[in-house]
């Protein structure tokens, strides 16, 4: 979404224009849901977290600083909601690989099977990391958020994103052996 168009939508939503807020929801619902899902690992939790985040964002629009980007501000609310839900679970729900599409063929079935095995091993290793290490990798590589957006989503300093990513990659390499 164009930043200037977004500023206008946010301003209209702030004044109580529900159509403007709906446009913001439509523009960001996919990012919000994917972010919540990658953190919470559960579909129902992710949907609830994303929905609650939009309601809370609407409530907090009065505190939103005009001219600031909306995306990282929303991401911070979404990620917080998703982490809260994850905290209430005794065991973190783990992400899984997508099943091969029916009818999907590979030129080299053996190579495809090996690639799947490598990905499974990598995902298992990611899921074994501590929450803060896992989250920073998920934001940077699964969601492809920038360092600044990752910092906003996780509520940490920009410099901490760099150092934590470095540390998480080293730990992941250790897990992989």
């Amino acid at each position, binding site marked *: 979404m164009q930043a200037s168009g977004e500023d206008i939508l946010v301003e209209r939503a702030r004044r109580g224009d*529900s159509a403007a*807020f*709906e446009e913001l*929801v*439509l523009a960001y*619902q*996919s990012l*919000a*849901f*994917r972010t919540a*899902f*990658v953190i919470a690992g559960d*579909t*129902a939790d*992710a*949907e*609830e977290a*994303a*929905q609650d985040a*939009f*309601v809370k964002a*609407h*409530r907090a629009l009065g505190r939103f600083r005009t001219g600031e980007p909306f995306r990282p501000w929303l991401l911070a609310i979404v990620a917080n909601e998703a982490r809260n839900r994850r905290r209430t679970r005794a065991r973190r729900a783990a*992400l*899984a*690989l*997508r*099943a091969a599409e029916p009818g999907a063929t590979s030129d080299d079935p053996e190579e495809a099977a090996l690639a799947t095995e*490598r*990905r499974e091993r*990598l*995902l298992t290793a*990611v899921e074994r990391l501590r929450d803060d290490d896992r989250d920073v*990798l998920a934001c940077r*590589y*699964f*969601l*492809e958020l920038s360092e600044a957006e990752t910092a906003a989503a996780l509520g940490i300093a920009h410099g901490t994103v760099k150092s934590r990513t470095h540390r998480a*990659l080293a730990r*992941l*390499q250790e897990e992989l052996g």
Partner: protein
Amino acid sequence: MTDLELELRDLAAHLDVPPTPALSGAVLARLTRRRRSRRRLSFAVAIGIAALAVAFAVPGSRAALLRFFHLRGASVSVIDTLPPLTAHRPLGQPIARDQASFRLLLPSGRRPEQVYARDGGYWLRYPGLLVFEFESSPGPQILKKVASTTTDVEYVQVHGEPGIWIGARHGLYLPGGAPVAAGHTLIWQHGPLTLRLEAAVGRDRALAIARSVR
């Protein structure tokens, strides 16, 4: 970017991420309810206490409450285990349509096969479709539903008014009765009325029926 970073990027493309559900309808319905509830705050407190009393009187409410949806005159509690449900409940003797105390709303304007006065409202029977209408403004909670965790429950909108879609088997609680087994159901507000329709159809078809009432 290192090999490990490239592998993580590749992994992202193979993660099983479910499709994004449509969130805007549910979010806007909740915002609409918040605005209305603020206007009626003092009244809502009194009703809230009454609703809690009803909730605690419902058999099976000791089961863990997982989610809660609310409309004027209706609420849906999502719990982990459904209590035993009655399969069938007779509606009694039909009445003439013009005996109703308010003008009944009819899907696509079609006349029902039968109309029954019961449960503080009117039941309209059509082939494969059952509609219940009641005056809920300001109204106490006279509908109570419980669904299991796997149930598809979501907020929807019908002509800009809030509604709840329940896309699976669940229990329907009416004042003074045992919980009755119910199927796919849409409940929505329509002016001073709250309407409920039950039919073996999907969400979009149910919404189309709801939008057609007049």
